[in-house]
Structure formats: structure tokens, C-alpha cells
């Protein structure tokens, strides 16, 4: 740790006295006092910068999210998102979709919970996660039962399900991508994109 633990560091930690600053020692104590009196009226505000990965595509560009406040203190509001110069993939650049990420986060029409537009209905309505997952599992099972291919043209046994496709997200870890592949391929799904090809 490159922290100054000098005499004055200890002095300050122990509260034993106020050490002289460059300004005080050189006869500019009045200017220092004027600045101190001025800033006392101000309060320090907290902002945060957070590294993340753009959620749009498999390029997985690095981004920096700027917020007012600190989410660790229970309160943060995103004010800006930009490309992360330190990230080796995009080196600070973003595509037009990535550059508009803040609008995506703040969008009034952003999906924040599972929604269902029932057959014959003209509008989406909220549905619980459990109900949504049950419904998806039911649809997958029905489709697989109806269309599963057990043997190819040559009569060789296969595990092949071609009527359902699966698209996984980009900002996943290798482990998530591995698990996703295992589940999807075990079901026999042929049309599968884990967005890990770039």
C-alpha cells in the first residue's frame, strides 16, 4: 500500500495537533484560511463510476456507468454511460446502440417483469416468474413431444429437435455459457446461439 504513514500521518490520526501546510509555512496562511472559510459552506456529494459489460451483443464491449450517489448506500441514479477506454475489446468506443444505452436503461417502456399477451388478447399483462417459466416449459415440452426426431434418414439414433431455437445472452461468464450449452444440447435443440462466437 502506497499510503503516507509519516509523522504527520500519525499526528493527524492521533489528533495530536495540526501540522503546517506548504501555504502556512510560506506565509500564505491567510489565503488558506479564506479558502477554508469558503468551502465550509459546501457539502461533499458522492458519485460512482462502475465498470460493466454492454448487454446488446456478443462483442461484449466494456462500459463505464456514471451515477449520482452510491448504490452501496442504497441510492444511485445513472447519469451517463460511455465506452471503457481500459477495455481491450472496444477501447472506449461504442456502436450507436451502445452509445444510447442510457436511454435503454431509462426507457419508460423497458421490460422490468415478465409480461404475457394471452392468445386473442390485444395487450400485455404482468405474469409471475413462476407462471412464466411454467408456461415456457409447457410450450417447449409440447413442441418437443410433437416434433422430436429420434432417427435420421439412415436409421441412426439421434437427439434432434429442430422446431425450437434458443438464443442466450451476451454478458455471461464462460461457466454460464457452458451450462447453457449443456442444457440446450441435452434437449436436442439444433438452432442455438450462445452469442459466444466472437
Amino acid at each position, binding site marked *: *500500500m502506497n*499510503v503516507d504513514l509519516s509523522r504527520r500521518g500519525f499526528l493527524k490520526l492521533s489528533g495530536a495537533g495540526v501540522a503546517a501546510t*506548504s501555504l502556512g*509555512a510560506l506565509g500564505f496562511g491567510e489565503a488558506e484560511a479564506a479558502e477554508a472559510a469558503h468551502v465550509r459552506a459546501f457539502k461533499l456529494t458522492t458519485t460512482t*463510476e462502475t465498470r460493466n459489460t454492454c448487454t446488446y451483443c456478443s462483442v461484449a464491449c466494456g462500459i463505464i456507468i456514471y451515477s449520482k450517489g452510491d448504490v452501496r448506500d442504497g441510492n444511485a441514479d445513472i447519469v451517463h454511460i460511455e465506452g471503457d477506454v481500459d477495455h481491450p475489446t472496444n*477501447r472506449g468506443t461504442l456502436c450507436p446502440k451502445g452509445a444510447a444505452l442510457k436511454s435503454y436503461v431509462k426507457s419508460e417502456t423497458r421490460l422490468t417483469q415478465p409480461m404475457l399477451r394471452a392468445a386473442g388478447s390485444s395487450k400485455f399483462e404482468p405474469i409471475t416468474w413462476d407462471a412464466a417459466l411454467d408456461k415456457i416449459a409447457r410450450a417447449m415440452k409440447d413442441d418437443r413431444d410433437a416434433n422430436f426426431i429420434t432417427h435420421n434418414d439412415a436409421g441412426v439414433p439421434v437427439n434432434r429437435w429442430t422446431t425450437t431455437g434458443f438464443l442466450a445472452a451476451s454478458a455471461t461468464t464462460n461457466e454460464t455459457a457452458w451450462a447453457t450449452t449443456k442444457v440446450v444440447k441435452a434437449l436436442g435443440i439444433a438452432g442455438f446461439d450462445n452469442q459466444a462466437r466472437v
Partner: protein
Amino acid sequence: MADDLKTTRLGVIPEPPFVMLPDPGAVFDRRAERLRFLADGSRLGPYLGFLAQIVACQAVLVRELAPVEPLPEDAVAQAIAGAMPPIDRMGLAEAPDLDAILDRLLERVAVVPMPDAADAARRALAGADREARTDILAQVLAGEVAGEDAGPALFAAAAVQVHASRLAATLDAKHLRPVRVGLCPCCGSRPASSIVVGDKRAEGARYAACGICCTLWNEVRIKCLACGTTKGISYRATGEDAVIKAEVCDECRSWVKILYATHDTALEPIADDVASLGLDILMADSDWRRAGFDPFLTGV
């Protein structure tokens, strides 16, 4: 036509170099100019104006001095291979070159109008014996200046910057490697502050600024420059849109200033560090301790 198409650039992809070595004359010119600008109408005006003249003396001095002898090539190569900074910073305290530069600087700044306390510090240093001078220079080089020595230390620091920046300028940026997080790859000093640069080749990249040899070196953003952690980093400033903030680390309870030249290209790592003393004053009441070492702002 084909050539035109080839050279058309839709955007610039930053390729931040690891280090930006100082051009001492240009660094001191720009710093003096910035200090003069900041002094105008500031509550800290008297001090900033004084510093502007000290830095102007540094700028004249680097042009007057005979070219500096580059460091021995094999010693530089050996240091870099061992992940050590090539400039033996602490060894400079006893270097005859630096002592001679200190003499010339003290002579030159004698004409600068300054408060009695500053003039007394200047005289004390000019009249001090070699041992006392070495002690003050060593404090500056170590980044630990005792309160009672803060006055003479400023003049000593001005001489140190002239000498160390000239030495750094002789190094080859291509060969320099990181020494450790938050330490200058040329001289091993802690940074004074850090700056998110705005120029095209490195736009948005953060550089730590050495207060000793004036080198700028690249450090990943959102990372503590004292302990290297990327956890628990947040920022404090007077206002959300401030262009100078304290980068605060909850792991080691310290902070270093970060200047956003992407929002104000005029920012200068040393001049604006001093001019933003108000932030130091507010942070002094917090639980975090300043980790940056600026020889023009000791004891804050």
C-alpha cells in the same frame, strides 16, 4: 479516390501509451501559465501567483542548464528487468548535480516577491550546510515532509522537479514497464494526482501524475492508486458535475484526486491540485486520508 477512402477515419480509437515522459520546458511553461490563470480572482491567488513565478523560474532553468547526462544504459536496463524504477530517487538527495541546481534555483527565485516567511525559508536553505540540505531534499524525494520543514521543502522540491524531470526525459518510453500500482515507473514516487486525458490519442484514459519527475503514466480507471483495489471505489466532490474529484477507496481508506480533462482540457495535474485545496480541506474532515503527494501542497 481509393487513397481518400483508405485515409477516411470515422472515429479515433484511443491507443494510450503506457508513459508520457516529460518535456521539462513545456511542462513548466504550461504549469506556470495555468497557475497564473488560476491565481486571477482566486482566494488562493497570492499562493498560486507565487507558485507561477517559481515554476516560471524552473522553466528558465531547464533551458539554461547544460544537457543532462543520461543514466547509464545497463543500469536502466537492469532496473527495468527487475521491475524497479530506473531513476534511483532517494540517491538523488546526495547528487552534486541536484545541489548545484538548487543553488541556481535559489538564486533565481530571489527576485520573486514573496512573504517574509517564504523569504526566510529561501535564505535558510541557501545558507544551510550540505547535511541539512540533503535532509530536506530526502524528505521531498521520500514524499514525507515534516511540518516544520514545509517552507524550505518547497524550494527544494522545485529543484528536484527540474533535475528529476530532465533525467526522466532521457529515458526511452518504449522500455519502461509498470513497477507497482500507483508508483511512478521512472522514479518510484507516489502520484500527486491523476488526470483523465482529453487528447485524441488517449482520450478517456487515466494517467497518474508524478510530482517529482513530472512523468504521466497510465493507470486503469476506477482503481485505488494507493492499494490497487477496484472494489469499493467512489468519488467525492463539491457538486456532481465537478471536474476535479476525490477518488475514494473503502479498502485502504485513502483517496487521490482525479481531474477530468475530458471536460476541461486546461486542467494541469499539479497547478489544479493546488488550486483545488478546498477539496482537500473538506476531505480532511472525512475518514479517508490523502494518498497523493504534491510537493507544492504538503501537510494538507
